């Protein structure tokens, strides 16, 4: 092999080594920048809605963040804001689907003129229902509802809560009950490992006289 050929081979090898080192360093730095962080993917329709995380605007649809609870909001003029609170666990990926509702004629017309977009919105809405930050994901009790105890008697189901401080968004509804049934209900809650302090509960069959009394 002559000198030129040897030099040529050396250049090829060195070039390959440099490219390899740069590639390894780049990936190492990328990995280091994400250590301790978890991946969040944000899906939003309409796609040009402004997305905020804890009030800060973001344009990235894939982000790496520290574990913890975050508030995600999508907003656009003519559409009702959609807000989701979700807990980002360590070493777990989270997908947040934001679908503001149309609240203007233009927005309604956009949906009507774009049925494929409406289908995408419905698909995202379904994802929200099944995701870990949905109602059933955050409160395992909900998965066993509605529940009926014919001997109690009582029936317990759940509905939406409108209290702004109730982050679970759940209201437990007690129906078909008698006073002993309502006592059985509290015992049933205890058997589920649940403390009534942690729930907003409406006893529909109970007329609380104190709610109509005159307070001094």
């Amino acid at each position, binding site marked *: 092999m002559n000198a030129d050929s040897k030099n040529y081979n050396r250049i090829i090898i060195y070039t390959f080594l440099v490219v390899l080192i740069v590639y390894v360093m780049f990936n190492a730095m990328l990995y280091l920048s994400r250590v301790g962080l978890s991946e969040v993917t944000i899906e939003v329709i309409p796609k040009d809605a402004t997305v905020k995380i804890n009030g800060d605007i973001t344009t990235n649809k894939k982000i790496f963040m520290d*574990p913890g609870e975050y508030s995600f909001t999508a907003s656009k003029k003519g559409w009702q804001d959609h807000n989701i609170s979700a807990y980002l666990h360590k070493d777990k990926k989270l997908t947040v689907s934001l679908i503001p509702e149309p609240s203007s004629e233009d927005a309604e017309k956009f949906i009507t003129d774009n049925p494929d977009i409406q289908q995408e919105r419905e698909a995202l809405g379904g994802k929200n229902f099944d995701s870990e930050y949905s109602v059933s994901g955050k409160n395992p009790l909900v998965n066993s509802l509605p529940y009926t105890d014919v001997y109690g008697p009582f029936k317990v189901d759940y509905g939406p809560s409108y209290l702004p401080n109730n982050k679970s968004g759940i209201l437990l509804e007690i129906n078909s009950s008698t006073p002993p049934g309502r006592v059985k209900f509290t015992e049933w809650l205890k058997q589920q490992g649940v403390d009534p302090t942690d729930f907003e509960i409406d006893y529909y069959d109970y007329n609380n*006289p104190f709610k109509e009394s005159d307070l001094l």
Partner: protein
Amino acid sequence: MKIRSLIVLIVLIIVISCLGFITYSSARNSTKIIFSSTNTEKVSVYSVAKTTGDGEPKLIKHLSSPTETLTLLKGEEYRVVYEAKDGYSDGEKNIRTDYTLKRVDIKPLLSDESLSKMFTQADLLEISSVFVATFPEDSQLYSLNPGKLLYDGTWYGATLTYRGDDVFNDDGLKIVFRKEAGKWEVKTTPPDITLSKYIYPEIPEEVLRATNKLPMTTPI
């Protein structure tokens, strides 16, 4: 010789890079939490995720001073177990090291024994009077049962027994009072079958939980 020196240099660079990589990676995966405790004899921090051979949570550290900073893994769950000084209750609390947690305050509650010593007959009489004064009509339908002084000694949880004749609404109810500026006041209006932290966010959760657990007893 030149080639050997080059190889040694490359190996050194690789080793130093690896050490730097491991150190930086470890630092990025950790967070510093300040633990501050009062009225405690001993505070211990355990990992909930990591367990010892017999399944017990693994001890991270016994804290050696009232204020101490620990470096913990991000996004993990830990249990803080504390032994309280005389007059206070031992306890434990779970924490999760998410991005919002920077400090953990450990403040044991007064023990049941301390609380019962604080509660006087005069308090009991005043609470009964306040109940009647607050609900002049409905208090006739209910009897106020003996309750418990709670939390920091300024909260009182009790139960109400129905004495009327409406058999479809004769449920026992829970009620909470608070002593403010030396006077007792009703804080749960209306009293209810169970008390929710969402309806009464201003009442400490420990007070609501303890009151919800009170058994229905005979009236005063």
